[in-house]
């Protein structure tokens, strides 16, 4: 890098990498969309689980990794996603559309609940969200039409199991793709810069004029919607809810935290890696019963203490890699003449303002 005089440098948003990411990402999504024509339903059915796990990990990371809100109550929205599906399905909407409509309703609910939850901070925020999740479960099971405390099935569902699996697969893939795309563009946007500064130092972010409360609220709502959509997929795949205490279980928060911590908190790639690791572990070790959950807890603690940036964080500190470019860097403009430099400077200042 040559001398850093104004005009001879510009701010680079990794535009080239971003284009590659978009092209490759689109290709991967299209390929995955055609997977049901290649693989048997048992395979794609297993992938549905992976898709909703990545979705859950990504939105939890958005909450905790970027906005600094550790929530152990996201199961509230998972449960609402499942039960919201029943509500709109009973009104005559097909179950897949119900999932999407329910997610809008969940966004509204999350917005309302944010006013209660945001009274608390840090650790008490975490446990407060847990209480809210419990209260939501206790309210949901008061409704007899929703199966009360017993759980229920989806009444109006696609009869053919192959088609059912196909539609659920596409929905899960669409939700995953949507979540990742929204996350990527959100973090590249002006608000993303605000979020990253909140993550690094909330007080300093506030001093720079960032509306921390508003930014956090938007993330809280988005995380609620994401968890709700994942909950709908869980419900679709299981053809209903076995019991409310299962879909509203705090274990979901444990899984989310495990995935994000192992993969790397505060990165987009980390939760994806964490979700894949969790998925593989679940495949092989879930017959260990509850010892397995205890092991997850131990690993989460070890990751927090000894690998605080997770697997992806450890990788990026060694190699300069990123699959989802969200950062900024200052690069020298080689051989910048007077006129070109001024043009570049104007361009780069526009790019930062965007």
């Amino acid at each position, binding site marked *: 890098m040559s001398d850093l005089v104004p005009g001879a440098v510009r701010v680079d948003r990794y535009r080239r990498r971003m284009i590659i990411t978009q092209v490759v990402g689109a290709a991967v999504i299209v390929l995955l969309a055609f997977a049901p024509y290649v693989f048997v339903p048992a395979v794609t059915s297993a992938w549905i689980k992976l898709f909703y796990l990545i979705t859950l990990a990504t939105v939890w990371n958005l909450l905790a990794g970027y906005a600094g809100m550790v929530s152990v109550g996201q199961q509230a929205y998972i449960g609402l996603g499942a039960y919201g599906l029943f509500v709109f399905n009973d009104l005559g909407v097909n179950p897949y559309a119900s999932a999407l409509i329910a997610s809008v309703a969940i966004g509204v609910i999350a917005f309302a609940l944010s006013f209660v939850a945001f009274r*608390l901070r*840090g*650790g008490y925020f975490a446990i*407060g969200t847990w209480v809210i999740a419990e*209260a939501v479960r206790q309210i949901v099971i008061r409704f007899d039409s929703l199966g009360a405390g017993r759980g229920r099935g989806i009444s109006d569902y696609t009869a053919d199991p192959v088609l059912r699996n196909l539609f659920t697969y596409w929905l899960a893939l669409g939700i995953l793709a949507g979540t990742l795309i929204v996350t990527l563009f959100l973090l590249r946007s002006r608000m993303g810069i605000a979020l990253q500064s909140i993550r690094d130092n909330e007080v300093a972010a506030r001093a720079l004029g960032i509306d921390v409360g508003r930014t956090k609220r938007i993330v809280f709502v988005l995380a609620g919607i994401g968890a709700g959509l994942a909950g709908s997929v869980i419900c679709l795949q299981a053809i209903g809810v076995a019991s409310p205490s299962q879909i509203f279980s705090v274990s979901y928060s444990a899984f989310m935290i495990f995935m994000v911590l192992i993969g790397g908190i505060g990165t987009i790639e980390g939760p994806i890696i964490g979700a894949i690791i969790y998925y593989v572990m679940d495949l092989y070790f879930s017959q260990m019963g509850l*010892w397995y*959950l205890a092991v997850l807890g131990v690993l989460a603690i070890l990751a927090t*203490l000894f690998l605080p940036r997770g697997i992806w964080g450890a990788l990026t500190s060694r190699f300069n890699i990123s699959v989802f470019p969200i950062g900024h860097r200052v690069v020298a403009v080689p051989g910048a003449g007077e006129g070109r430099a001024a043009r570049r400077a104007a361009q780069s200042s526009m790019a930062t303002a965007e």
Partner: protein
Amino acid sequence: MANALVQGILLGGVFAMAALGLSIAFGVLRVVNLAHGEIMTVGAYLAALSLAQFGVNVWVSLVLVVPALGFVGYWVQRTMLQRALRISELAPLLVTFGIAIIIPNVLIELFTTNKKAIPTGDLAVRSITVVEGVSIGVLPLLTMVVAVLLIAATQLYLARTRTGRYMRAAADDSETLRLMGVDHRRVYALAMGIAFGIAALAGVFFGMRQGGVTPFDGQLAVLFAFEAVIIGGLGSLWGTLAGGVVLGVAQTLAGVVSPELPLLVGNLVFLAVLMFRPTGIVRSKVAV
């Protein structure tokens, strides 16, 4: 109705006791111990085990269980949380949540989900009739008395003793405390030890009240303790007692209406206090 009110107030005793440990840990270390309820459960299990294995009286077992968990708390702080505190604000929270996930699952694998009895002789059934229709159980009364004594003792300890003053100093500014030549890590660990010990005691009382303990009790208990802390007002030890009583009364009165309602109404009262009176019902004077 009057009976329910009295029972509710007494129920508040066990909530307050549970809340006290949480309050100390947060007050001194700014760490919210999400595993607080699980520590209570472990305390109750240890009491039940020492009863079943060695046939010791539950009161005798307390002499063992409380210091044992206090010791565990001291070393959990020294080995894990102290390290986490240096990493980030969120790290200690995640560590305690990890512990909260480990304990119930291990307990289920070791002792199944069945209730483990904590026999108390006839203590649980004995009661004193105050007036017609209002009778006070001996055990709830005893719990309340212990809770009040414990809060008073903690208050005195923090206000009057040297280590108590260190703890308040560590809560305010651990850097300056270090400059005064006090190892803040030991002070923190001691506070966590006390918090764990009180949690164990509260867990045994909670278990005695319920006639036994299951691996799932910790989840309920941590939420009750937390609700009592917030309803009472952060930073006030007597507030936790008031918060516990409010929660106890709300749950008991709701239980009169329908046996399915206590938990929901308790949670709603908590959310209402949070919404409309976020500083809690008791103004804190002494910052812990």
